[in-house]
């Protein structure tokens, strides 16, 4: 599936693949320091119109600070932010084409749902009837019409979340900033709301920038994800790209679970390389550009990519070795295993439980594990 095959569609849906596309939001070399503490360090990033861009990272990684700089609550120590081509440096929060949905929702406790949603429209100088019309439409979109006259404290968590969303969207901002939008909801509601958010985003075509610590949420919502740690963006990419082709040990380890193996490049034949590892022996794989013989690299293999078999694979199959099952956990749709390799190294592997009456691999069995070259990712950082 190359991008040349369907250029028009690909450029439209995935503008970041088109080098000539103009970004809608440009963050250029932005840093933010509080005293001696650096919250955001030299971040550059382009976001395109209509995207759902997720900033993903643990607590204290700087993602919220970056979002607050976009909203105008903090000003960058260095660098600049452009929205729709305009420099935001001297634009205060109340004049920016962005609106924010707060983690705590920040609904005004002394105003009804209707007045909360109308607040921003009235600040724009809209007349009251006009504002109320828009409010009614918006409440319909988020399915809250019957609750217009209620106060925030009379609503459930999910309803409050939708009021906050409606209030931020009613001004038809160019960009909607969402700080942990689903963080305060329980698991089941969260899954429903994810799809609801996507529906609304597609209906209105607003650009979303979402801050989250929840990788599943980021994977489901995002067109692209920026993985942040210690104030830096480590990788930007589509969810699939981030998961399948992490660019560093950090990203591989942060997203999902992964087995990492140290090794040295023993030989190179075009893109094909053989890496010597203490744990798995020689591993055949595809090396990224710029790798040289003798270089120390890390191999990343996702647990679900191991094939587990009782019988040894056919003679001459590359990338295989024997292991003992030390532990096994039944997890409904999958079973997870902890396997002990010849040199004592423990690796984790999962297998999907596709058949009900399968004779599963159990404790203390000696088995073969196979990891064909395409599933092994070579990391140099």
């Amino acid at each position: 599936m190359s991008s040349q095959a369907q250029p028009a569609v690909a450029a439209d849906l995935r503008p970041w693949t088109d080098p000539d596309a103009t970004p809608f939001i440009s963050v250029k070399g932005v840093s933010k320091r509080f005293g001696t503490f650096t919250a955001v360090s030299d971040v550059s990033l382009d976001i395109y119109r209509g995207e759902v861009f997720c900033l993903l990272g643990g607590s204290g990684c700087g993602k919220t600070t970056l979002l607050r700089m976009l909203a105008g609550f903090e000003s960058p120590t260095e660098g600049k932010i452009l929205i729709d081509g305009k420099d935001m440096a001297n634009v205060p929060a109340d004049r920016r084409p962005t609106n924010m949905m707060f983690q705590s929702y920040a609904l005004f406790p002394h105003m009804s749902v209707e007045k909360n949603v109308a607040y921003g429209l009235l600040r724009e100088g809209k007349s009251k009837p006009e504002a109320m019309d828009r409010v009614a439409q918006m409440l319909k979109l988020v399915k809250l019409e019957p609750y217009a006259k209620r106060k925030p404290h009379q609503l459930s968590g999910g309803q409050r979340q939708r009021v906050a969303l409606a209030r931020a969207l009613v001004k038809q901002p160019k960009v909607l900033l969402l700080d942990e939008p689903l963080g305060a909801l329980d698991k089941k509601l969260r899954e429903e709301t994810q799809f609801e958010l996507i529906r609304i985003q597609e209906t209105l075509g607003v650009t979303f920038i979402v801050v989250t610590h929840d990788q599943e949420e980021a994977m489901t919502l995002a067109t692209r994800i920026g993985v942040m740690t210690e104030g830096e963006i480590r990788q930007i990419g589509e969810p699939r790209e981030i998961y399948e082709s992490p660019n560093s040990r950090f990203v591989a380890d942060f997203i999902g679970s992964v087995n990492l193996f140290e090794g040295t490049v023993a030989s190179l034949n075009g893109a094909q390389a053989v890496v010597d590892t203490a744990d798995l022996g020689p591993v055949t794989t595809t090396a990224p550009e710029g790798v040289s013989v003798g270089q120390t690299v890390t191999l990343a293999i996702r647990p679900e990519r191991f094939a587990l078999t009782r019988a040894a694979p056919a003679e001459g199959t590359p990338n295989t070795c024997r292991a003992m099952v030390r532990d096994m956990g039944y997890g409904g749709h999958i079973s997870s295993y902890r396997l002990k390799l010849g040199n004592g190294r423990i690796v984790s592997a999962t297998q999907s439980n596709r058949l009900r009456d399968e004779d599963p691999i159990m404790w203390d069995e000696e088995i073969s594990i196979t990891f064909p070259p395409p599933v092994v990712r070579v990391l140099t950082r």
Partner: protein
Amino acid sequence: MRGSWFLPAASFLGFAFLYIPILSLIIYSFNDSQLVTVWGGFSTRWYGELLNDAQILGAAWISLKVGVLSATIATVIGTLAAFVLTRFGRFRGRLLMTGMVTAPLVMPEVLIGLSLLLLFVSMELALGWPSERGMVTVVIAHSTFCAAYVAVIAQSRLRDMDDSLEEAARDLGAGPVRVFFDITLPVIAPALVSGWLLAFTLSLDDLVIASFVSGPGASTLPMVIFSKVRLGVSPDVNALATLIILIVAVAVSVAGWVLYRQSKRG
């Protein structure tokens, strides 16, 4: 701890200690006899005498005016001080302001009273104002020390308030002044109401500061009461005390109700 009887018993004695003097005031305000220990039968005679005492009524009216004015000014200054201290981050003079807001809470009243009087006298010499001491000087003095109490109450409410409420209003297009009047003020209003009430009671109650900074013709109620009771028990003061306790009980209930409503709405 220490057996199950100790705490309740000690607490009961503690509450008795707090309330017996107040109860005795109320009971003896209905005593017909001039002598305190002798029960001369139920009577509302002291209330009648109270209502005919022009000196006490005049002083009460002055105290009321001073109280309303001081409480209002104190609420404005205290709220501003609290807002500046909780919302403005670091600024030059922050430490000074923190000190000036907390010190009046513990500063002995004689110090506040004497120093303010000396200020007024010096100001009169230097600026010709205030030309005489009276209600205005008492209002200034009371506003100053009551502002500290209001500031403490407002500060704790402002700290508890979710910062993102104000940010959300900014985000939706309101300027800083607008945010203060639309969001901050309504949200902290219940705390300001109780702050105002506290300032009002403190002003109504103050003897020492008023004695220093007041002048002829502006004796407040506590000053009149003090001159009466210094010589011993006076039954019409009992009646007055009972009335004040009644008013306070009502006012505190109202304030409590407002705060309770606020806490219920979360």
